[in-house]
């Protein structure tokens, strides 16, 4: 079992913009949106769960429309 966090987005434009903004600051990985969140756009960003607070702050600063979820696999 490993835990990680994902940011889900309403649109792929938001996801692509978030990847560009965050990838130089945080170790984020683009991934397909996990199937159970299929209501969101198909591109999600994965990051380490230890960086949730930092990521939330960055999402707010850059006005990114994303929702953070915790994942286990």
């Amino acid at each position, binding site marked *: 079992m490993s835990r990680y966090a994902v940011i889900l987005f309403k649109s*792929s434009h938001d*996801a*692509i913009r978030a*990847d*560009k903004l965050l*990838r130089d600051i945080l170790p984020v*990985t*683009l*991934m*397909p949106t996990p199937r159970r969140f299929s209501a969101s756009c*198909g*591109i999600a960003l994965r990051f380490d769960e230890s960086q949730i607070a930092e990521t939330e702050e960055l999402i707010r600063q850059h006005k990114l429309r994303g929702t953070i979820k915790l994942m286990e696999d």
Partner: protein
Amino acid sequence: MVFVDATGKVCPIPVIMTKKAIEAGATELTVVVDNPTAVENLKRLANAIGFDAAVEDISGGFRLSLTKNNKNVDEAATTATTSCASSGSWAVFAGQDVIGSGDRELGSSLIKIFFYALSESDDLPSHILLMNDGVKLASVNNATIEHLQTLKDKGVSVLVCGTCLNFYGLADQLKVGMVSNMYDIFGQMQIAAKVVSL
């Protein structure tokens, strides 16, 4: 000496014809086929059932001489040789560093999540073949380098076009995979049961 003419036959027929002849008692066979996939499949069959195989190029195809040796027979491998599109026999070809044509940013995101999904899959290709802009996936694109490394660690061979690396001045920046050439990349395409092109 038994002669099997499998000219014009595609997988799995050449393997089935050869197996039948062997089951009927043949210990020395000459098999003629006209495609490289059949050659590879017959070589695998020979190896699995304790035969030596010698291949010769002939006009319009290949001639295999199969001779019984005393090696152990691997039943599981014998069955595997007749399944033409079995897992492990496919390849991914990327001739660009994006998926499809259209917006570059979107295409770049799509190829990253493609390799993410592939690296998590249970059915992995045997080879990933990179050419033209595709070589950037193994040299300058950090996201795809990570996924390709995971795939390589799981046993997937990553073959990277050396001509292309040179052309783009990236020869000293290759991070994952093996520098390769047209003969090897083309050869893997011929052996693979299917090639998925991005």
